[in-house]
């Protein structure tokens, strides 16, 4: 018995070593917002380039920023750009900087689960702020009903769902609310992890979608693809021009139009509540966080190769997953920025 066990252990150990093949594994972690398109991209890229395996873990933007700063992953991903303190922390720790590379445009949408309501509800900025501040507590409150005449809203308590982990999706949502509600700005403000006045916490976009799907009379904020893939209703939001706009490729692209022309060199920009008649007000870029200096030349070249592919072929598949392509100007600017990775 002992001999057999010993033999088994030996064989297994040997296998583990021998089967270590040549594929280079590059580890990344971060935002759940773009996870569907990233997992698709990495899968396709690996099929085309079997020597590279990009292992992306969807753990939330907060964890993405933290782990890439700690150096435990090779690249990060976030929908809430790193602030100056975080950039400095990275610089202090590594002696070189970290770059933001926008990958796609996406949108945070309000999704809900109300029996009998299958269409798109209209949400004003005040309604959304009120709901998430805990001041609008019932679905048939005038703040909501006023914009949705003709819809039978129940007198039920609203169950708010937010993120329990550090999230770029949260950053986008709170960034928007801070812009449209002074009360929100002073009470809660914006960030990847905020002090929510009310609500249940779900882990990742996946967790929030799951909770909303299972909890009657709930409302949550998730990236567009999650409501599309799960066939659940989502609402329109009133933009800065006064129109109720539903998130889709056109409205998200419209939101980025202004920023595209004035993109800063470090690519950190907020496009929530963007001007424009057809712009969807809770849109955002999402970024890959790539270290400026790599110790491992193999990993550096692999990442540079991926980025180039992502800006060309990769952009062609984003629309099938309801993300909007990057504006042309941004793509050109990024192609130049790739050269600064050493």
């Amino acid at each position, binding site marked *: 018995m002992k001999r057999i066990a010993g033999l088994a252990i030996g064989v297994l150990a040997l296998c583990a070593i021998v089967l270590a093949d040549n594929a280079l594994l590059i580890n990344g972690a971060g935002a759940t917002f773009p996870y569907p398109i990233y997992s698709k991209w990495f899968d396709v890229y690996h099929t085309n380039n079997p020597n590279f395996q990009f292992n992306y873990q969807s753990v939330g933007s*907060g964890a993405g*920023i933290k782990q890439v700063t700690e150096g435990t992953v090779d690249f990060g991903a976030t929908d809430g750009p790193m602030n100056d303190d975080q950039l400095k922390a990275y610089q202090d720790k590594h002696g070189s900087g970290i770059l933001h590379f926008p990958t796609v445009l996406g949108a945070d949408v309000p999704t809900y689960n109300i029996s009998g309501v299958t269409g798109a509800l209209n949400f004003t900025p005040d309604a959304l702020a009120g709901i998430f501040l805990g001041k609008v507590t019932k679905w048939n409150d005038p703040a909501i009903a006023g914009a949705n005449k003709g819809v039978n809203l129940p007198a039920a308590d609203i169950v708010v769902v937010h993120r329990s982990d550090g999230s770029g999706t949260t950053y986008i949502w709170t960034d928007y609310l801070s812009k449209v509600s002074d009360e929100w700005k002073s009470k809660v403000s914006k*960030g990847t992890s*905020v*002090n929510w006045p009310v*609500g249940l916490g779900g882990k990742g976009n996946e967790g929030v979608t799951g909770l909303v799907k299972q909890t009657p009379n709930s409302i949550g904020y998730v990236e567009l693809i999650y409501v599309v893939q799960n066939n659940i209703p989502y609402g329109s939001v009133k933009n800065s021009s006064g129109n109720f706009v539903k998130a889709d490729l056109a409205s998200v692209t419209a939101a980025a139009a202004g920023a595209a022309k004035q993109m800063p060199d470090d690519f950190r920009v907020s496009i929530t509540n963007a001007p424009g008649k057809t712009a969807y007000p809770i849109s955002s870029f999402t970024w890959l966080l790539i270290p400026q200096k790599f110790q491992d030349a193999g990993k550096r070249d692999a990442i540079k190769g991926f980025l180039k592919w992502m800006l060309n072929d990769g952009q062609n598949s984003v629309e099938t997953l309801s993300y909007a392509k990057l504006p042309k100007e941004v793509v050109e600017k990024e192609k130049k920025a790739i050269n600064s990775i050493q």
Partner: protein
Amino acid sequence: MATTTTAMKSAGPVSGSRSFLARLRNGDEIVRLITLIFAATVVLITAALVWELWANSALPRQKFGFNFFVTSVWDPIMDQFGALPFIYGTMVTSAVALVIAVPLGIGAAIFLAELAPPRVSDILQFFIDLLAAVPSVIYGLLGVFIVVPLMRTVIYPALNKPFGYLPIFKGPSYGVGFMTAGIVLAIMVIPYIISVSREVLLSVPRDQREAALALGSTRWESTWKVVVPFAKTGIMGSIFLALARALGETMAVTMVIGNTPKIAASLFAPGYSIAAVIANEFTEATGDLYLQSLIALGLVLFLLTFVLNGLARLLIVVTTQKGSEVGG
């Protein structure tokens, strides 16, 4: 053992006159040293763990001091961290778990120790031991897909409609919350209560029962009024053991508690526990104060379980010893 070792002078413990190297040539000494090193490793690991927890939670200790335990604000943006909501959530879910598990567990233990024929008792205990082996993530899985809908459709209406005026049953139900987590925890800790209580009850000497029955009590009366009080401290020990397990439980709780760092009187409200917040926020805690506050929470949890486990063991040992001393 002493007589045999003195007879084996060449292999036993050595006198100080032999040099270390000479001792090493003796095979026994080498083996002794090797095993000593491994045993010392255990001590080293444990010491390192405690030290790491203490050293890496220095910042919140310096900044907040005792206030850390009584503040209920958890705000990563403003760098304000208070442990109260998590301590509260951990306590409440464990309390709910015990309220459910203790009566059921002691009842089952009484049955297994007093009533069931030995073979039946052993077989049932075997199954209960298997229940203790079920991984916690599986309980979480069942919690999400069975207990949460059950809570929403059956348990909440049953408790809220008649008793909704009580603060603990007030308010809307989300499916997830303190009570849901408590129910899942109850299932997880029942096996501990049953197996330890059963052992303790079995160790009560026969005289006690027989004396009571001889005095004319019914079977139940002799059990409840004589045997159980005799084993009382051991049963308390089993409850402490179960409590320690419930406190440290992570996965099953985070999947059904609602992950909301708020203190609420209602059992139907969502909450948070120490283990759950560490699991959710540890990999993303940017900033030293944030990370160290989480580690400080881990230290609190560790101390709680440490004290409970120690007490439990003491109580159980005292009871089983009492049983063998009184004789039977």
